[in-house]
């Protein structure tokens, strides 16, 4: 496997986010919610963009997108782009949240689970 072309180092300053995402400002897919749990499917490999490698290390156990963003100190939208790269390459999997559809109520099973969990705190 060859080193990807135009490998950038993350720099400080206003261009950093642009650099990290290689100029992309929007995730290609809507694949991630803030609480989608990310699981690494492989260890980082040499030559990988450092943010990608960081994510793979972080996600050795399931980690929510917001937690990845907080750990990397990057905005959520930037993290989603990075996750999109990894997902596309099969290096992570995503465990999706069970959404409550807009203007609908959670099902009773869900509510029971959540209630029991809270009562046990």
């Amino acid at each position, binding site marked *: 496997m060859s080193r990807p072309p135009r490998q950038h180092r993350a720099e400080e300053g206003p261009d950093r*986010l642009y650099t990290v995402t290689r100029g992309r400002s929007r995730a290609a897919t809507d694949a991630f*919610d*803030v*609480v*989608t*749990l990310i699981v690494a499917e492989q260890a980082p490999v040499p030559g990988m963009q450092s943010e990608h490698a960081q994510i793979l290390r972080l996600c*050795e*156990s*399931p*980690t*929510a997108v*917001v*937690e990845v*963003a*907080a*750990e990397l*100190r990057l*905005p*959520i*939208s*930037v993290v989603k782009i990075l996750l999109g790269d990894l997902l596309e390459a099969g290096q992570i999997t995503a*465990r999706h*949240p*069970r*959404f*409550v*559809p*807009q*203007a609908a*109520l*959670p*099902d*009773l*099973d*869900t*509510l*029971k*689970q*959540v*209630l*029991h*969990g*809270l*009562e046990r*705190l």
Partner: protein
Amino acid sequence: MDSNGSDGSVAAAGGRTALRSTADRAWKIVVVGGFGAGKTTMVGSVSEIRPLTTEEVMTRAGVGIDDRSAVAQKRSTTVAFDFGRITLSEESVLYLFGAPGQQRFWFLWDRLFRGALGAVVLVDPRRLADSWYAIDRLEQHGLPFVVARNNFGDPAHTLDQVREALDLAPGVPLLDCDARDRESSKQVLIGLVRHLTELAVAAAPAVDPAADPTADLENAP
């Protein structure tokens, strides 16, 4: 309020508590309220992790046209919000988000909190009007909520007076709480889930799983 995490609320690497490897189901609940209402405090008092701060970039397109503040002058701005987490079981985990209730942020919350179970409106009794906008939006969106009056000393009004000032619908629970207290904050969340349960029971027609098109998905292994 600042978005650069300079308050040290971003956990140091290595200091984090990982989720269990079996975790595969995440839920979210939103805590909204005016500046200083106690959102961060509440998230922190029930969270199993130190509340973390993260940020989202809001582009100009996302800023309400009604907004004439500095936000509208820039091409994009960053909005910070806090979150915490509660492990509910081997498989499920609940995330709590603390979000400022001001109008100019709401576009962002609309996106971030889509799919949430419900919301807590945390109220500083000295500044009731700060929560009007959040309540309006939650009602508009049909996201169920409870209102919690945070304890900032002896309240000057009764809960009924607060209910009236906030123009709450009769079914919306209004509780007292102390966001600094874990048990009290936990009771607010339990109050929300009980409220959601009542609404769900009332909305459920008959117990006929076949009539529910989502039943198969929900019950799939």
